[in-house]
């Protein structure tokens, strides 16, 4: 149990995918302008990331490894991720039209979130088992959601603040992200994984 708790803690705070590993930066910058859309994106990404982490583990373990064609990993994982995203979109559209309208275009965009592929590949690299993959994917997703929502909340405040003209727009957003990243680096001293 401690092991899984450590994986969660590690992926959410210490090795945060966005601010420490610098994966999935485009949705981080792109969808963080409003808190509402950020929360929607966070929910959708959490679902997809967890599911694709597990399913790409299964594909790797039971299809690629026995046949000795691990070099097909990247293309295979992209295929799996695309299918999972499509499937998620259909299920959400059917079960919750409201959520579907809130997520809108962000749902298909998750396919191109490099954190999703990154998690799948890191699972293989670190030789995670099934449950470890599950927790790794979920932790990465929660970490992504956490910083995305925090960042969106900050950007809403910044939008109302008196920012010097040369820093307005993307500049101040990037500086904010940098400072957040510095702050998250501080968690590196918390535990050693």
């Amino acid at each position, binding site marked *: 149990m401690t092991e899984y708790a450590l994986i969660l803690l590690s992926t959410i705070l210490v090795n945060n995918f966005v601010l420490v590993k610098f994966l999935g930066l485009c949705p981080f910058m792109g969808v963080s302008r409003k808190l509402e859309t950020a929360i929607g994106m966070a929910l959708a990404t959490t679902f997809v990331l967890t599911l694709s982490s597990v399913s790409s583990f299964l*594909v790797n373990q039971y*299809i690629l490894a026995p*046949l000795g*064609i691990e070099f*097909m990993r990247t*293309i*295979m994982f992209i*295929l*799996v991720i695309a*299918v999972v995203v*499509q*499937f998620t979109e*259909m*299920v959400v*559209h*059917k079960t919750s*039209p409201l959520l579907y309208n809130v997520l809108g275009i962000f749902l298909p965009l998750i396919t191109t979130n490099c954190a999703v592929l990154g998690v799948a590949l890191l699972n293989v690299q670190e030789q995670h088992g099934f449950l470890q993959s599950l927790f790794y994917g979920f932790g990465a997703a929660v970490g992504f959601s956490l910083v995305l929502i925090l960042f969106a909340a900050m950007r809403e405040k910044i939008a109302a603040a008196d920012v010097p003209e040369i820093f307005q727009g993307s500049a101040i957003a990037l500086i904010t992200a940098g400072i957040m990243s510095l702050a998250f680096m501080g968690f590196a001293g918390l535990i050693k994984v």
Partner: protein
Amino acid sequence: MLTVVVILLAVIAAIFGIILGYSAIRFKVEGNPVVDQIDSLLPQTQCGQCTFPGCRPYAEAIASGEAEINQCPPGGEATIIALADLLNVEVLPLNAEHGEAKQTKTVVTIDEQTCIGCTLCIQACPVDAILGAAKQMHTIITSECTGCDLCIPPCPVDCIHIVPIEQNLHNWKWPRPDGGHSAPKAS
């Protein structure tokens, strides 16, 4: 080796395709079929003369009984008859509140000498058929114009004129045999 990989990839992609295809049927979202049918009868000018913001909202309003079938001037009598046929209701005369039906298809042109570049007509256009910017001369993209004439009232210098569409080899169509019982299509 390579053959195995290619075949395997194809097989797995096919399996995923089947799964997605099945779930597309299984999780199919039921739209309202009546709305679709009504929408397909409307002329798709998106002019808003029916007081609804476009043809689709008007179709939804008809389907839910909030609107009469006689509020569509661009469609004219032909659309009303087709809607009455579809919904099994009485044919009503066109409601004059919403405008009059046109006999011929028209588009608008901007007199570019007079245009002052105020952008008011651009905001009024429901189909983005007007090209221009503030203090720049505007022009109409004739192939996009649906002839709804919504841009004429906002123009402060009256530089927008209605012109009938000339028939030529490219837009000529066979005349309708049944006197216009089927709905006119947007061209």
